């Protein structure tokens, strides 16, 4: 009944009326107390109606009418006579006849048309207890009243029998379709030669069954002459005279001529006036004969159109078919109707056919053209004295097959512009000609023509709407195919529900999942993490699982072993690159010295020295030495400065070792150290103890020193197996180490600076002697110096006594690593130094992890941004080797984002598609700014997994969800996070119509101010949205 909303009236035979009545009937039948009420008739609801008629005036009214109709009905059926004594009571509803033929839901229909239905139902509902069972729908206090109130709407509508111009919006009743078919088929067969009975007259409302059917046929046929959904009416004119060929009729009959355009062809129809709706002169006669006169000509069967123009009587058109047979002549009344018809015909033929010679070119042409053409049409010059004849040939331009194929494909849009133009053109021509006409039925014609005009406009609008709908549908299909082909890989097919996962992996959930040191339920861990993150205290334990370092189901022992191995490998790698670092530093010093020398020589000599020579000049040793001195002093002062803070800690560490274990254990510990059986175990042991005792920031510093010390000891043990096993000896060892360190510097220096003057030696010795003295005087200082040895080039040189010339390392390797080292240093120094964790010495740890990674992956090398990726891991783990291992896992995915990978371009392309699918408005905006589609504003987001966009706590939250999402929902979750970031600010972006630069600036300014939880939530929603879109196949 939706249509009723817009139309305010509904055709009585509309399928929706029937279905509504059926629904009402079903509602009323349900739970009806038939037995109790003695309702045994076939239509128990009708019986019910009669029953309640006593109490309800509305019901009484309808009941009375139903009875009346039922009484009429048998009458009608029996009567075949023309005399209809009993006219339908409800003249208003002509359709009653029809209803009688379809007596289904009769009373409900009647009540509906009489607008009484809702009141009757209302009555039934309020008295439900009387007629219905307790569990009946009508008896239900809620549903009953809903039912009656629902029917108020339909009862407010008007119901009509007449079909309106837009009746094609409704579904045509089946009988209409059948009748239409009958008409067309009856004309394809040779019609019988029945003679019409002139005075056979009968009203349209004749009550014989035969005439009733005929009546419907006729009406439907007439209706089919109007504009409808199947055919466009191009031309219509009444009182056109035709002498039917088959009839022995001698006089031409007036009738209605119409020209219809359907999808496949043009059709000319002529209907005798006797069959037309408004024809009332004839009554009481069987008109079936007229049906045989009616004409229906398909234009594709016609080859020639003969026109005979007669000033007195108008014009005659004779259609000649392919077989050469003439169709009955069509005689137009005066007033340019023939011309109008021809012009409509011509335009209707377009674009696939045309008239030859063209109708209108003749008109526009001058007399010359007239002479040129054999049979020019004098167009609009009916008042010309001479009658003229013309012949037009209908030429089919197009390949029929093509055309039909296209029609079959319903590609209406390809024809549409033409059609619209055709219709508009034809209507305007018709109205034009009608205004110029001065025939008797001018008024009627112009009215009809203006109707046609309006219909044409309506039709073109309708077609536009349909084509738009079609385009919309097409776009949607394409859209879906894009989604499926390009984006299905972005999300997982199975949707993992997020029930009870809002809190994420809390301590409580963890204790449930982590049984006896084994974590088995990987899916649940991922799910909880994806939907709610991990409790901060648990991150240190959970992250290695999420990153794939720890295996799910591994035992504590297995994990410890893994950690052990990791640690050991880490130590080994570190010692490797530390050695190289020493050489690199030595070289740096040389180049630095050279550069400074160059500078000073430039400034002192004042004359231009060619650059090549300059580079080789390194004679200014003073600069070199002072530089070295400066560094040594700095080291010293560092050591001294540290001394104050270091000393108590050192003691503390000792106490830990001694207090926390008995002498025997200490012995073992020392043994381990020196015998080099398991150095990392030793390191770990002391480190673990440190971790237990010191929670403060400085603890790491201590760890560092311990680590260095023990590894140092190990190396010493390697070199000097006879070293005593006492602690004191160990310290002596360190002392000796220092001695060698000094010696080493002295030895290596000459080899470095070949051209150095002896003065150089002096300087070096002096400074180093001072250092030695100081170192010798205080063992603690020595220790501290040692602890700093990690970053001290001399100390490393001690480990690997290769000179700065490179020794065992190739110059390429040295150069590559050196370059990387400098970059790392530069970036590490700048990395998050304002974050509490890195305010101390933890930047050194960061540097170590970074250098180890680059040493192991020299082909990849260091790239800016890597530090940012290590930092959060280090903050969580506070353990270099674990951080290193996890970082390696993380980089497996991330490395592709860096400039030598191609993941970034993929990300951008995917972002583009995603925005297109999920936010078309945003996409439009981006499309309007060409550059926007580069998506470079996302570059940093993807490169660092949003690390720079968020504060640390939010980075943790983002990262773990990204990792978990790989298993739960999408391995490209970053895309959805990016999209969510855009969505959160979409109003700002759209309202300001931001372009490429605006949006870069906007997001750079918004960095670390985002609502991380909201972004995560939206991202998860977007994933789900896409999953549903893909699933909905």
């Amino acid at each position, binding site marked *: 009944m939706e249509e009723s909303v817009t139309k305010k009236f509904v055709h009585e035979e509309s399928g929706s009326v029937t279905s509504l009545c059926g629904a009402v009937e079903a509602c009323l039948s349900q739970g009806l107390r038939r037995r109790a009420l003695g309702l045994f008739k076939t239509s128990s609801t009708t019986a019910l109606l009669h029953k309640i008629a006593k109490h309800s005036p509305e019901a009484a009214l309808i009941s009375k009418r139903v009875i009346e109709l039922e009484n009429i009905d048998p009458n009608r059926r029996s009567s075949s006579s023309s005399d209809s004594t009993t006219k339908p009571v409800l003249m208003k509803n002509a359709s009653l006849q029809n209803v009688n033929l379809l007596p289904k839901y009769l009373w409900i229909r009647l009540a509906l048309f009489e607008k009484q239905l809702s009141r009757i139902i209302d009555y039934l509902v309020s008295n439900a207890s009387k007629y219905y069972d307790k569990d009946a729908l009508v008896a239900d206090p809620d549903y009953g009243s809903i039912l009656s109130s629902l029917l108020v709407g339909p009862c407010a509508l008007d119901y009509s029998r007449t079909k309106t111009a837009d009746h094609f919006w409704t579904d045509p009743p089946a009988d209409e379709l059948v009748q239409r078919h009958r008409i067309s088929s009856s004309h394809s067969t040779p019609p019988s030669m029945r003679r019409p009975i002139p005075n056979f007259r009968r009203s349209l409302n004749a009550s014989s069954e035969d005439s009733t059917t005929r009546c419907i046929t006729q009406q439907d046929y007439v209706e089919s002459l109007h504009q409808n959904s199947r055919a466009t009416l191009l031309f219509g004119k009444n009182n056109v005279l035709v002498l039917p060929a088959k009839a022995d009729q001698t006089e031409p009959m007036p009738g209605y001529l119409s020209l219809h355009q359907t999808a496949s062809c043009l059709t000319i129809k002529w209907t005798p006036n006797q069959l037309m709706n408004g024809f009332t002169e004839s009554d009481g006669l069987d008109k079936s004969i007229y049906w045989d006169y009616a004409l229906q000509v398909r234009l594709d069967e016609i080859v020639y159109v003969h026109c005979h123009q007669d000033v007195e009587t108008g014009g005659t058109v004779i259609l000649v078919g392919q077989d050469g047979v003439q169709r009955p002549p069509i005689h137009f009344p005066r007033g340019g109707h023939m011309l109008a018809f021809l012009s409509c015909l011509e335009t209707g033929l377009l674009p696939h056919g045309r008239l030859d010679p063209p109708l209108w070119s003749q008109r526009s042409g001058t007399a010359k053209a007239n002479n040129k053409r054999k049979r020019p049409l004098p167009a609009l010059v009916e008042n010309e004295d001479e009658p003229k004849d013309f012949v037009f040939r209908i030429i089919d331009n197009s390949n029929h097959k093509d055309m039909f194929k296209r029609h079959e494909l319903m590609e209406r849009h390809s024809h549409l512009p033409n059609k619209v133009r055709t219709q508009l053109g034809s209507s305007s021509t018709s109205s034009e000609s009608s205004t110029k006409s001065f025939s008797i039925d001018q008024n009627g014609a112009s009215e009809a023509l203006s109707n046609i005009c309006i219909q044409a406009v309506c039709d073109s609008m309708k077609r536009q709407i349909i084509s738009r709908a079609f385009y919309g549908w097409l776009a949607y299909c394409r859209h879906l195919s894009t989604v499926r082909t390009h984006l299905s890989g972005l999300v997982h097919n199975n949707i993992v529900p997020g029930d009870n996962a809002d809190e994420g992996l809390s301590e409580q959930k963890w204790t449930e999942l982590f049984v006896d040191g084994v974590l088995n339920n990987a899916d649940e861990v991922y799910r909880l993490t994806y939907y709610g993150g991990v409790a901060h205290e648990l991150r240190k334990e959970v992250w290695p699982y999420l990153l794939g370092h720890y295996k799910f189901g591994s035992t504590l022992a297995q994990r410890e072993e893994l950690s052990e191995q990791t640690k050991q490998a880490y130590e080994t790698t570190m010692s490797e690159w530390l050695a190289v670092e020493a050489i690199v530093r030595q070289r740096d010093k040389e180049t630095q010295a050279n*550069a400074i020398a160059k*500078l000073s020589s430039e400034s002192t000599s004042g004359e231009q020295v060619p650059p090549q020579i300059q580079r080789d000049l390194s004679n200014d040793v003073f600069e070199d030495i002072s530089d070295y001195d400066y560094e040594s002093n700095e080291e010293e002062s560092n050591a001294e400065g540290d001394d104050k803070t270091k000393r108590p800690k050192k003691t503390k560490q000792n106490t830990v070792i001694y207090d926390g274990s008995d002498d025997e254990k200490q012995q073992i510990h020392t043994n381990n150290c020196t015998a080099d059986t398991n150095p990392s175990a030793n390191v770990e042991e002391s480190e673990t103890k440190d971790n237990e005792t010191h929670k403060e920031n400085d603890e790491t510093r201590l760890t560092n020193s311990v680590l260095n010390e023990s590894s140092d000891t190990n190396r010493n043990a390697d070199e000097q197996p006879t070293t005593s096993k006492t602690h004191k000896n160990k310290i002596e060892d360190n002392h000796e180490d220092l001695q060698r360190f000094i010696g080493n510097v002295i030895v290596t220096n000459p080899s470095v600076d070949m051209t150095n003057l002896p003065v150089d030696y002096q300087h070096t010795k002096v400074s180093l002697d001072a250092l030695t003295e100081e170192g010798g005087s205080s063992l603690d200082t020595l220790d501290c110096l040692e602890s700093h040895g990690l970053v001290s080039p001399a100390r490393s040189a001690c480990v690997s006594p290769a000179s700065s010339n490179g020794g065992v390392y190739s110059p390429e390797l040295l150069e590559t690593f050196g370059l990387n080292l400098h970059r790392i240093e*530069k970036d590490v120094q700048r990395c998050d130094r304002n974050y509490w964790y890195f305010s101390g010495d933890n930047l050194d740890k960061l540097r170590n992890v970074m250098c180890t990674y680059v040493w192991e992956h020299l082909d990849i090398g260091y790239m800016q941004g890597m530090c940012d990726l290590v930092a959060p891991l280090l903050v969580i783990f506070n353990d270099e080797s674990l951080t290193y291992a996890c970082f390696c896992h993380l980089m497996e995915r991330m490395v592709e984002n860096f400039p030598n990978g191609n993941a970034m371009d993929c990300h951008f392309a995917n972002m583009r598609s995603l925005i297109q699918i999920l936010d078309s408005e945003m996409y439009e905006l981006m499309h309007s700014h060409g550059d926007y589609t580069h998506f*470079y504003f996302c*570059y940093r987001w993807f490169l660092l997994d949003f690390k720079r966009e968020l504060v640390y706590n939010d980075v943790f939250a983002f990262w773990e969800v990204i990792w978990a999402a790989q298993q739960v929902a999408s391995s490209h979750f970053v895309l959805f996070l990016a999209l969510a970031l855009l969505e959160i600010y979409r109003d700002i972006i759209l309202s300001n119509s931001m372009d490429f630069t605006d949006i870069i600036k906007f997001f750079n300014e918004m960095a670390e101010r985002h609502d991380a939880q909201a972004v995560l939530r939206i991202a998860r929603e977007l994933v789900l949205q896409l999953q549903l879109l893909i699933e909905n196949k």
Partner: protein
Amino acid sequence: MATRKKVLLKVIILGDSGVGKTSLMNQYVNKKFSNQYKATIGADFLTKEVIVDDRIVTMQIWDTAGQERFQSLGVAFYRGADCCVLVFDVTAPNTFKSLDSWRDEFLIQASPREPENFPFVLLGNKVDLEPRAISSKRAQQWCQSKNGIPYFETSAKEALNVEQAFQSIARNALTQQNQTVDLYNEFPDQIKLTNTTNRNSNGDSCAC
């Protein structure tokens, strides 16, 4: 030219990582120095309105990542630049050595109309630090060999010479833009091109 409402000068800062590009930009625009800057990832820019020869112009100063591996990103940012600022660290010889490659890379990627005359400005930063590795003379020499690029010795930390340097940058950029606009004016088709595109798109929407 006088009829143009808004003049936007696009300036790109290039140079090795850690030479102080971000610091220079922030010192100039925000008059602030911080030692908390992180390594620039991707690109960022700041805008500042300046008066050049009695004209108000908006400078859009683009700060880029210093690692040469990220230069492939450049093409998106370099396009339409009016001036390129090369920065090196006077205490780090390597940063001076790579100036050539920065300049070449920019010319390749931005492909300005007249590469020979495209305005560059060289800034030797961190003059507050000791010891110096690149003398003023050597930098001047390099500039002369490159068609007389203006050279400024700056310190973003001490705000030394920064204002003067950027004034010169703005002036050079404006000159460049005027020349470019003049060049473009010789091809009035450009404007029509956009109109045609608009019309086409309208036509498309009508057809459906």
